[in-house]
């Protein structure tokens, strides 16, 4: 697609096609992190279907013109999960797939944590808790400019330990940012351990509800369900919406699934081979 008035992404992928894309991109994620020798596989794999639903069905944007003023915004607040984001951005046409091999390398546009030097990235990241505030700023700008774009912000569940998340939640409801959708990647693991061991988040739905948000829950890997949830999130908007997406950290690679050890480390050669075989 091109130009400034296109109504959508132009993508009409079926769910099976989206699932095939997910399989391709899981390989890209593992390859990217293995080539770099570092990175965050767990959260990149848990967030993947959420991003695929957004970039290949839900959001309108123009990869030829990343700054298109009418675009829907996606803000990756959990910026360490950048390999999943980059895999999706390159597949969506923002930059060539070959560039994934430059992740975390000198003179690359593909930084360790997402930074707007990468085409398609809106916000600098790497310090948790900031993305919802930034997304609210984008959402308020739409109101000032009388534009109808949506703003999506993806947060980690461990990230919800940050006080700023709740400052932003309170203020988004206060300022009636109905074009703002937060998604919590509820994979139940943060840097060190399971979220339940580090800091109790439940009842997470009621926390958001009591801050004035409309709460939806979904299986974060079921593309049918995700698409339906995003569709509902766009309709009957009187409050900001949060989607708690129940996911599996490390999804798709058996030994990474539900394993806190793969929050932030690259697979070794043997693990890489095994992962790629599983994803073949």
């Amino acid at each position, binding site marked *: 697609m091109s130009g400034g008035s296109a109504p959508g992404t132009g993508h009409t992928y079926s769910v099976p096609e989206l699932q095939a894309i997910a399989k391709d991109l899981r390989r890209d994620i593992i390859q990217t992190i293995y080539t770099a020798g570092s990175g965050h596989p767990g959260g990149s794999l848990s967030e993947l279907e959420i991003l695929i639903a957004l970039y290949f069905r839900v959001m309108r944007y123009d990869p030829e013109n990343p700054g298109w*003023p009418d675009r829907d915004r996606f803000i990756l607040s959990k910026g360490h999960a950048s390999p999943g984001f980059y895999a999706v951005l390159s597949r969506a046409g923002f930059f060539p797939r070959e560039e994934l091999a430059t992740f975390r390398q000198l003179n690359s546009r593909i930084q360790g944590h997402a*930074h*707007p030097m990468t085409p398609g990235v*809106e*916000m*600098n*990241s*790497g*310090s948790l*808790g*900031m993305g*919802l*505030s*930034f*997304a*609210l*700023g*984008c*959402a*308020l*700008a*739409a109101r*000032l*400019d009388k534009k109808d774009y949506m703003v999506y912000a993806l947060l980690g569940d461990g990230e919800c330990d940050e*006080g*700023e998340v709740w*400052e*932003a939640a*309170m*203020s988004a409801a206060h*300022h009636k940012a109905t074009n703002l959708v937060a998604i919590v990647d509820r994979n139940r693991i943060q840097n060190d351990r399971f979220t339940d061991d580090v800091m109790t988040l439940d009842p997470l739905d009621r926390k958001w509800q009591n801050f004035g948000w409309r709460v939806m829950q979904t299986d974060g890997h079921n593309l049918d369900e995700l698409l339906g949830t995003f569709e509902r999130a766009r309709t009957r908007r009187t409050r900001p919406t949060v989607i708690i997406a129940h996911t599996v950290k490390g999804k798709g690679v058996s030994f990474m699934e539900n394993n806190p050890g793969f929050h932030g480390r690259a697979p070794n050669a043997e693990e890489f081979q095994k992962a790629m075989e599983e994803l073949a």
Partner: protein
Amino acid sequence: MVAQRKMASTRQIYGETLLEMADSFPDLVVLGGDLNVSVFTHLWRDKYPERFFDFGPAEQNLVGVGAGLAASGKVPFVSTFSVFGVGRPFDQLRVLVSQPGLNFKLVCTHAGILTGEDGMSAHGIEDLSLICSLPSFTVISPADTVETVQAVKTAASEDGPFYIRLSRAATPVVHEDDYQFELGKAELMREGNDVTIIATGVMVSVSLDAAEMLEAQGLQARVLNVHTLKPVDEEAIVAAARETGAVVSAEEHYFHGGLGSIVAQVVGGNHPVPVEMVALQGYSESAKAEELMVKCGLTAEKVKDAALKAVSRKQ
């Protein structure tokens, strides 16, 4: 001997200047963290409610939302007290604003010990040190209301992150109305070749008084107003070192990381001469602003003494 100068409030003129810019800067929006009456952004809030957003005392979010607005083409003026606007959201200023270099304006009032009675927690004596450590920021510490008006208008016109430091107390007006502020250029306020007093903020007025005292003792002190701390006017500072052979810095800020550190860095790196610093040595206490200025040694007498010491150290 000490000049009588009109007193005027930099924070009040800030609020009034915002109103003046409303039509010429249609993308300008104002963000507050409660405290708007103290910061004088309530003037804007009441006149342009649709271009004003309050976030309460929640400064991480305040800066984060401002960054999102800036990334969407707005020109956010974000204001609160300096202790809250710089200290609490420092990481948001670093990651969301400075690193991508967004067009974001942080204007903080109640800086320094001029905040007075509220005591040490309310005295922003570290703000210049913190904010100067962020590579993308332009940092301005106006000497009076006349300079504040032009600094605020300059920040709105120029791209990139700006920090402007204002006071709670009314401060002496040292400029005529026809003064022309030039971003990044130190202002020569008084010519002299025996010593240079390099001052910023309220200490410009104090330093002009010190120069009068020095003249009575037969010494001609040059006085530079360094309103722009970053990028600093290295040329003017190096010329001062070369031509006067001794330098005194004067600031209402902690001695570490503020104007004195900047001056010492520039002088030491280019034309080493004696440098004396008049600055705060640590935390202060609750009292009237003018009492604290005396107790903390931010007086014309002390600046004069520092100048004499710098002169005595000349080789």
